[in-house]
């Protein structure tokens, strides 16, 4: 399950909803990652653009990979402005085995940072500035420069 929110995520509700939906399906482990906007460099907020059709395919690929290991994956992300000290990313993995849960959480979050089609902007005094210095070219970048 992939959910997009306009603005900050309702983190407690999401974690409670995910746990409540799957606690009784005989998964031995649930792991979560929650990303929260840090106050740094004088920003008021971060802002996000998402290209949903490609995000959905990327997410479905991970979902299938986890299903092949008997595990479940769900995530939520914000679109638009997310003020400092609120959260823009949350995910959960349910797995029968703790090793799968721990290893897949790490791999999923790292691939998310590198390949999910989401663009980040600093919001400072009403201006929206692309966070070029913190962004990573997606796998396969440069094809049209060859």
């Amino acid at each position, binding site marked *: 399950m992939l959910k997009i929110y306009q603005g900050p995520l309702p983190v407690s509700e999401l974690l409670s909803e995910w746990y409540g939906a799957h606690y009784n399906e005989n998964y031995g482990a649930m792991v979560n990652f929650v990303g929260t906007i840090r106050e740094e460099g004088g920003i008021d907020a971060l802002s996000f*653009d998402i290209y949903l059709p*490609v995000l959905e395919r990327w997410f479905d690929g991970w979902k299938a990979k986890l299903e092949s290991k008997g595990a479940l994956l769900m995530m939520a992300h914000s679109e638009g402005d997310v003020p400092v000290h609120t959260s823009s990313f949350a995910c959960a993995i349910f797995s029968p085995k703790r090793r799968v849960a721990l290893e897949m959480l790490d791999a999923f979050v790292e691939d998310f940072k590198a390949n999910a089609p989401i663009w*980040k902007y600093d919001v400072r005094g009403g201006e929206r500035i692309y966070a070029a210095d913190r962004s990573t070219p997606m796998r396969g970048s440069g094809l049209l420069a060859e």
Partner: protein
Amino acid sequence: MVKVEFLGPIGKAPVEIDARTLADVAKVLKEDPEIAKWLEQSAVAVNDTMVNSLDFPLKDGDRVSLLPPVCGG
């Protein structure tokens, strides 16, 4: 004709290009300096599927998307 769209911070309106492969698209985009500077760092999707070959054949009405460097989370 294929439609080329520029996602996220590239901030350009879509353009229509006469192209049979991604190599044709690349040739046209390199002529626009505003866009050319993004090519090195951008990935490419055709009809929302990521593509890794310049030989990828295009047909009339296909949608080509340029995806610049990302940073979710």
